[in-house]
Structure formats: structure tokens, C-alpha cells
């Protein structure tokens, strides 16, 4: 007879014995660092600069575990990346867990391990946290929020207003990997696939770029809504237009084939290990060189450039056959089609 797996109880979020036990025996050992071990009401940090970047994100991905990562890895890398593309070096994260009553503790352990591994790989410390439990059925297993602090790199001035006509648009690799991987493992659609999420922390690469190259105007990570959403945000915010070359956009054949079968658009699919950078024409070659010399940028490429806006800011795509069409802001949810 199989033993009933150990599960999280509501009491684990109740602030009493069980919660202390959870923190000391399961959470702390994995995330061990001096600041966190204090278990103070807040983390005391001494930062080398008062110019910092601060961000937060919540993670509700389903399925919780997917090829190439899990919600824990995502929670660390996602926030690290927001800090990275803002021109800062990530140093510290907070970690808030909202766990559904009945969630298996072995799954929690696996997620905590992923968080620990990702934090170490990205050289950030989890310095403060919180744990709450909710009734069964209220949290899809587990929800995670991370907030992050990064030290702004000197001599880096990023902004949509700095974008100028002639600037090049660069991406560090293939698009759609994360989005299509999640879809392939989602109940109701699932299909076997070698696809894996590109979930990864980009700070090491972006810091190298910022420290080595002048002329980076703006950067963003194309997560939900994909490349299409990010490019549309860029044109709206900078009041310029953008022309993209379809044949330059890197897409894995397996990703494209999965999208084709479902009627999805890879331009709208999420990416978790990619950034879009707008750089001056002079900076582009050096940026490409640095990216291609790094494991997370081997397929980096220039996909287009900034052009003058005519009446409205637009993202225009030059297609493989030399035609032109607009790329709009995606609706917000892709559904599989037969038509």
C-alpha cells in the first residue's frame, strides 16, 4: 500500500510552530545566507551605491514543472532579468510563497531547490521572505512573488526616449521556446516534444554588455506577449516606428512546427531567457560579438531597425517574400485553432 504523501497544511501558514518548522527545516537550509538566517522582520542590507533598481513579479505558471525549469527557477530568473535589462547588477531578492493546502511537500522541496540553484547561479541572495497558506483550490498549487534589488551600473542611461532613428534592434537568441514548451505540457493540449523552456538569468551577459559597450539605448525582456508585445511597447513609448526582417528572427524549427499545428503565432509566445536591445548602429557589431561569445547569446542577431514614425507608431514586418505587414499588440491569450 502506498503511503500518503506529506502535504502542506493550512497551519503551515499560521505563524506558529508548524510555520517555524517549515521555515527552519525546509526553506532556510536551501536558501542559506547570513541575512536570511537572521529571520528578522526585514533584511538589513548595506549596498555599495544608492542608485538602485527595484522590481517585483508574481509567478503563477501552469504546469508548475516543465522541461527546462519550474516555477521556482522562473521566479528567480524572471526578476533577475527585469533588473538586468534595467541596467543593474541584481544582488538581493525577496521570496513570498502562497501555498495551497494539500500541496505535496516533496514538490515544495523541489521548487525550493530550484530557487536555491537559480539564486546561486545568478549570484543573488534571497534575503527575506514570507509564507502563507490558502484553502485548497485557491492557488493552483503554489503562487510565488519575488521582488528584487539591483545596483545600477555606472554610465548606463537607458530609456525609451533615447531611442533614435537608425538604431538597431537586437535579440540574443531564438523566440517562442518557453511559450510553446508550456503549451506542450498543458493538460488538454499536451504533446510529446523535445522543446524546452529557455528560462535563464541574463544578468551576467547584460552586465558585460553594459560595461563594454556605449550606445545601448534600451532593453526589455519579451516575456508574456512575446516579441510582438515588446516591440509594440517600444514603438508606443518612443514614438518611433520599427521595421523588422522576418528572415532574421531566429526560431527553432520545432518551435515553429508546434505553433503551426496549433495555429499559434511565435511572435506572441513568451520568452524567459531573452532580451530585446535597441542599440546605436555603431554599438551593434560589438554587442553581437559579446552575445555570441556567451552561452546565452550564441544565436544573437540584429532583427531590424528604428525608423521614423509616419502618422502612428507601428511595428512593420518585412516578410520572407519581401512583402510588408503590421505586427499588432497581441490579444493576451492564444487559443488553438483549426482554421
Amino acid at each position: 500500500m502506498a503511503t500518503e504523501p506529506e502535504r502542506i497544511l493550512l497551519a503551515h501558514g499560521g505563524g506558529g510552530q508548524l510555520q517555524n518548522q517549515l521555515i527552519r527545516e525546509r526553506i532556510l537550509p536551501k536558501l542559506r545566507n547570513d541575512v536570511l538566517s537572521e529571520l528578522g522582520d526585514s533584511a538589513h542590507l548595506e549596498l555599495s551605491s544608492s542608485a538602485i533598481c527595484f522590481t517585483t513579479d508574481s509567478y503563477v505558471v501552469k504546469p508548475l514543472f516543465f522541461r527546462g525549469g519550474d516555477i521556482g527557477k522562473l521566479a528567480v530568473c524572471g526578476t533577475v532579468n527585469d533588473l538586468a535589462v534595467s541596467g543593474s547588477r541584481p544582488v538581493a531578492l525577496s521570496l513570498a510563497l502562497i501555498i495551497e493546502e494539500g500541496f505535496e511537500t516533496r514538490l515544495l522541496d523541489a521548487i525550493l531547490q530550484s530557487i536555491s540553484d537559480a539564486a546561486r547561479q545568478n549570484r543573488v541572495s534571497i534575503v527575506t521572505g514570507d509564507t502563507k497558506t490558502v484553502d485548497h483550490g485557491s492557488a493552483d498549487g503554489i503562487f510565488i512573488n519575488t521582488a528584487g534589488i539591483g545596483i545600477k551600473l555606472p554610465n548606463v542611461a537607458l530609456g525609451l526616449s533615447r531611442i533614435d532613428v537608425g538604431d538597431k534592434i537586437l535579440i540574443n537568441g531564438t523566440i517562442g521556446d518557453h511559450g510553446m514548451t508550456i503549451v506542450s505540457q498543458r493538460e488538454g493540449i499536451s504533446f510529446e516534444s523535445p522543446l524546452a523552456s529557455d528560462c535563464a538569468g541574463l544578468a551576467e551577459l547584460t552586465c558585460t554588455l553594459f560595461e563594454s559597450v556605449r550606445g545601448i539605448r534600451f532593453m526589455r525582456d519579451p516575456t508574456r506577449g512575446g516579441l510582438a508585445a515588446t516591440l509594440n511597447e517600444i514603438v508606443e513609448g518612443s514614438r518611433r516606428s520599427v521595421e523588422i526582417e522576418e528572415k532574421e528572427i531566429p526560431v527553432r524549427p520545432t518551435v515553429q512546427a508546434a505553433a503551426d499545428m496549433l495555429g499559434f503565432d511565435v511572435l506572441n509566445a513568451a520568452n524567459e531567457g531573452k532580451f530585446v536591445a535597441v542599440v546605436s548602429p555603431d554599438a551593434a557589431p560589438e554587442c553581437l560579438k559579446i552575445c555570441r561569445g556567451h552561452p546565452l547569446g550564441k544565436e544573437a542577431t540584429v532583427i531590424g531597425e528604428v525608423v521614423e514614425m509616419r502618422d502612428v507608431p507601428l511595428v512593420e514586418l518585412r516578410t520572407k517574400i519581401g512583402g510588408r505587414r503590421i505586427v499588432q499588440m497581441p490579444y493576451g491569450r492564444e487559443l488553438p485553432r483549426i482554421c
Partner: protein
Amino acid sequence: MCLAVPARIIELEGDRAVVDAMGNRWKAKTTLLPEAKLGDVVLVHAGFAISTVDEEEAKKTWELFAEIENFENTSNKISG
């Protein structure tokens, strides 16, 4: 009104098939294509194979098909 994608039949039992499109494996039925054989490239729509693909013809005009062929011939089929 018809998203349909070419894929190769890699498993076939009765009219239940598994097809491969660039490494993605989907279930498909061959009820509408009784002559389909293991190894055939078929066109799949809404979970059904609706036609075999004439590979010679396909190579002439179908870029997607050419990509399938290239993909299958590479040693590194895992897109990593």
C-alpha cells in the same frame, strides 16, 4: 479555413497513429486515410490525417516540407 500541417507517421496501430513534425509528436487518426503506412508523410488537420504528401511534388513548391526534410536529415534533431 484549414490549418493542416505535414508530419511523418512514426507509429501506426489500426487507425491510431503517432506523427512527428520537427520532433513534436502528436496523436492522429488515419480513419480517413486507410492506405496510410508507417513512414508516410501525411497532412494532419484537427487530429486526422487527410492526405498523404507526395514528397517529390512537395519538394518543388513547399518550403515547409523542405525544412522537414532538412530537419530529419540533421543529426541533432533535439532543438537545443
